[in-house]
């Protein structure tokens, strides 16, 4: 049973770097080219910044207004992650309750679905009646992030291999042993998928709810900066806030993708590279 020697660390690193170049260099080039075209267009046609600011102008605004923008970024991030954490614990907890007690699933699942299918912008004004604006925004972000985590995790918990379930039964595993040693690990890839979707949605929820709330003062997040800059016709700052939101979204996505690879790398198909 001889096996080929595994590639050395250096070889692996080299292969990874080459892959990265092939996969990332091209899109990066296209992205930079489109920025250049944008920049050029603004200069050639002398479009005023209050209509369409050039990328360079957006960058300088980002630096000049960093104090205000970073404070807002911090507010948005805090709400997004607080909502995501709550959704994570709530979603996984409820999914476990659903799989352990079928009647609970039957009784509460409809509520989860109703909350999911009702557009968040429509709920936000109502929540604002009952809650202060920060809490209302947090609740909206939570509600949108919650459902994908719940439904993915519940699906994962239910889709443990049938024969493995038999095996646990054969060895007289208790329901909790089965949950901990079998169902939870089997659900991990599904949960991480839900988390990746939920992470993006929490950010979207936080932005949409803040726009609906239109709140000012201590709790002004990036969405409020966009609305405010719009009123003041400060279009470069509007773009700068938008850039920050996009970057945040991308970073959240990358973070959870990386987390999936780290946790699943050795066993799950989704995280394993096909050999070429």
């Amino acid at each position, binding site marked *: 049973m001889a096996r080929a020697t595994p590639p050395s660390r250096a070889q692996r690193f080299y292969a990874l770097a080459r892959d990265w170049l092939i996969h990332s260099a091209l899109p990066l080039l296209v992205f930079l080219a489109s920025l250049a075209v944008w920049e050029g267009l603004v200069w050639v046609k002398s479009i005023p910044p209050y209509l369409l600011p050039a990328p360079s102008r957006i960058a300088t605004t980002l630096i000049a207004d960093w104090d205000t923008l970073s404070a807002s970024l911090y507010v948005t991030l805090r709400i997004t992650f607080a909502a995501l954490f709550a959704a994570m614990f709530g979603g996984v907890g409820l999914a476990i309750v659903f799989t352990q007690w079928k009647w609970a699933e039957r009784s509460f699942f409809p509520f989860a679905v109703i909350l999911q299918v009702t557009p968040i912008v429509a709920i936000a004004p109502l929540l604002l009646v009952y809650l202060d604006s920060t809490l209302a925004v947090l609740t909206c972000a939570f509600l949108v992030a919650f459902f994908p985590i719940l439904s993915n995790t519940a699906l994962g918990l239910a889709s443990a291999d049938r024969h493995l379930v*038999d095996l*646990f039964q054969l060895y007289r595993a208790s329901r909790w*042993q089965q949950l901990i*040693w079998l169902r939870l*690990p089997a659900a991990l890839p599904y949960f991480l998928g839900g988390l990746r979707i939920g992470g993006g949605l929490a950010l979207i929820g936080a932005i949409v709810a803040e726009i609906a709330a239109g709140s000012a003062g201590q709790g002004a997040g990036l969405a409020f900066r966009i609305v405010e800059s719009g009123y003041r016709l400060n279009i470069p700052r509007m773009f700068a806030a938008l850039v920050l939101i996009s970057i945040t979204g991308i970073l959240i996505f990358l973070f959870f993708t990386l987390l999936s690879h780290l946790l699943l790398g*050795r066993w*799950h198909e989704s995280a394993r590279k096909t050999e070429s």
Partner: protein
Amino acid sequence: MTDAPLVQLKNIGKEFANGVVALEELNLTIHAGEFLSLLGPSGCGKSTALRLIADLSTPTQGQIEWHQGHDARQTLGFVFQDSTLMPWTSVYNNVWLPLRLAGVSRSQADYRIHEVLDLVGLRAFESAYPGELSGGMKMRASIARALIQRPQLLLMDEPFAALDEITRLKLNNDLLQLKAELAMTIVFVTHSVYESVYLSNRIAVFTSRPGRIVRLIDIDAPYPRDLSFRHSELYAKSCQDASEALQSAMSEQDHL
């Protein structure tokens, strides 16, 4: 070889909730120490019979009687067609599972785990994950797990059906050796005539659904068996017997 009965299936019937009758009037005695193959066309209820013996499912008719105390029933080993390992953890942890569920700590189980890994020749791969192993090695890990409780009775449901021919022949020989070393009783489900003849003392041939035993064939060749047995007249004759029994069992129902 003893003739003492270990388990008896008496007039077993199994009808599933959806109305499918998988087994009907199944009578079978499993003797301690024997290698019994259940041979039959796919869908005839072989897996169902095995699951009934393992108490993973209950018969809708008849009863299953255990004769030699509780031990055999408590520790029985089960090997599925696909190796059914937990993909998220190492071979070591997979083999540990039955003991772990019974509350045996890692340090207490360590010696046993290494012992069975040695038996199946996987000691060097204890920290590998199932996804990193070949099909044959996965099956070995699965067998190691089934052996960890020192079962008197090992149930195997088409364990080698998905493997390539060469690996299967190798594992057939290794299985016979394991059986000799550990003095177990083995009930082995297969739809391969050749495999059943090569491995077993006795073959129970099933009809198509609803499954019943139409013939019991004794293979009176001594163990250890090797290539020379495959070339013997007894082997050829037994294969012919088993094939004919299978043929007639299938045409009797004129199913297809």
